[in-house]
């Protein structure tokens, strides 16, 4: 470092013209090289892996076999080696691919601890692995399948979806999908940011204590409308401003009692307090 400075100094003082950088790299050359290298390796990796996910949704025999192995390793201890069920977990024969996609895709399964309700946890499997397990369960017996993408696109009628949501869903999940409490430790989770395929899956399979809303009760188009409504709630800020978690009188009451009344009491004290 010091030698470089001396060299510059001698170069500057020995010639009258300004010193030209001879053979010296541009200061940002290292950074540029790193960036190019990262882009090259990252790009190559992305190119190499995109092709691998092209056809994992097809229920090939290989997929079912992989799913069986994954099931045996992760799920059979509670659900039985052939998914026939044990004292610790119900049978999955007839549960269908959609149930697996929902339960494993939202992280509820594998269940970490028994209790009134399985919690949402970080998802433990890649989507390919989930699809493999789903294919294996679907192969056991006919059951609900993952819906066509046009039913989870969220391009339906928001108003009809809102009315259906209000009638069928809002009593447990809250009118804005903020979630709600049930009895004895169970709850209906909030629906903000939930993947449409999981919303559809929950409606069709009726996980845990949620009732079943089969395609004969709410048609796939109506389910798409409900997904559209949930997308609308997610994307549009609340018209009333700060929605305080959409919990209605509970959070609003807390806010007014603490901040509103607190401010009023403060103002009352200030009004009659002697000036400084």
């Amino acid at each position: 470092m010091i030698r470089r400075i001396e060299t510059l100094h001698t170069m500057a003082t020995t010639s009258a013209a300004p010193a030209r950088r001879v053979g010296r790299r541009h200061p940002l050359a290292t950074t540029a090289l790193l960036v190019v290298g990262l882009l090259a390796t990252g790009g190559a990796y992305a190119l190499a892996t995109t092709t691998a996910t092209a056809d994992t949704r097809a229920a090939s025999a290989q997929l079912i076999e992989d799913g069986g192995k994954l099931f045996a390793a992760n799920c059979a201890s509670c659900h039985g080696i052939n998914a026939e069920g044990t004292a610790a977990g119900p049978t999955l024969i007839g549960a269908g691919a959609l149930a697996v996609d929902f339960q494993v895709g939202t992280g509820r399964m594998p269940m970490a601890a028994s209790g009134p309700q399985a919690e949402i946890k970080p998802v433990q499997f890649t989507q390919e692995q989930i699809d493999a397990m789903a294919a294996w369960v679907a192969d056991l017996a006919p059951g609900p399948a993952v819906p066509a993408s046009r039913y989870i696109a969220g391009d339906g009628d928001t108003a009809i979806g809102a009315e259906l949501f209000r009638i069928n869903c809002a009593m447990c999940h809250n009118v804005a999908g903020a979630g709600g409490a049930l009895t004895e430790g169970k709850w209906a989770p909030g629906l903000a940011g939930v993947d449409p395929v999981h919303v559809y899956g929950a409606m069709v399979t009726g996980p845990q204590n949620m009732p079943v809303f089969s395609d004969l009760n709410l048609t796939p188009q109506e389910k798409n409308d409900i997904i559209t409504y949930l997308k609308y709630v997610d994307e549009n800020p609340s018209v009333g401003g700060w929605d305080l978690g959409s919990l209605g009188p509970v959070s609003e009451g807390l806010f007014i009692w603490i901040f509103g009344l607190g401010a009023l009491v403060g103002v009352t004290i200030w009004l009659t307090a002697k000036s400084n």
Partner: protein
Amino acid sequence: MAEAHDGVDSGETAGKAVAQQDDHSTPAPPVAVARLDRIENPGFPPERLRVTDLDPKKEKQAERAISALFFLSIVGSVLAVAAYILFPIDPLDPGSIRLNNMFLGIGLTLALLGVGIGAVHWSKALMHGHEQVEMRHPTRGVDETRERAVEIFSEANAESGFTRRRLVRNSLIGAIIATPIPAIALFRDLAPAEDPVALLKYTMWEAGTRLARDPSGTPIKASEVTIGSVFHVIPEGLAELESHRLEEKAKAAVLLMRLPVDALNETEDRASWSYDGIVAYSKICTHVGCPVALYEQQTHHLLCPCHQSQFDVANHCKVIFGPAARPLPQLPITVDEEGYLVAQSDFTEPVGPSFWERAL
């Protein structure tokens, strides 16, 4: 400031008075001992002047602050008008309400609070602030005034004859008591005129009415109801009603559920009210009337969200928790020849909460 030492003075004089009274008989006992412990009137604390009185710079600052608040109020008023014009509410876009409301509110808040806080601060910090003592005059009137007042009353009594003419007086009192009585009858009439038993016992359900989905009104086939399903049901024809649709829905709303047949514990007389594990119950809570629709599929409990009454669907919705007094009324259902679910009859008891005339 004479009042400041009033307690001590009167104590001393009282002590002297007692001592003087006892002087002519026996030497006075030391009665003044208790009085030495008497709490002395501390008087007023020394007057604290405000910073605006002591420091002319602070006074200037306070002046500037107050006028700034008033200017802020003017800005707020202008902002409110500008917001109203710049952020109009578009009937097709609910989101436009938010900005309009917020800035209008901010403007008005600044306008009003600016004036209010400025005025209060002006009076507290700048206006005359020295302490004064305002002497309280005694409230008891002069004796002559009091006697004259009593005289006036007796003169008025004599002139009107109120005490003397008993018939007139008693009939007046009777009339005053009787006058508000029609109000009771009028206010009573604000309640519904119909017989509540008839109003609440008879709903739109009849023998043969098909169960239909809410809100579309499409009838439901028994084969469409899978185990663990919940259908929100209205009578067929309610969706097309021209008038009183909400009143009828408020009585006729029904929740349809399917349980495995072996999970249902049915009594003998109601075994025919369900169909192959499909049961229908009134959605109106028997506590205060909220719709009970929080169905837990595995435990087959129904929860009412308002006061947390729980009903057990496997046992004819009997109450297992909470303030509800009676189980939810069951709608007897069966299947018609095309496979659609139909009601066998209306509810056999009034739906919803208890009321005075309801036969228990």
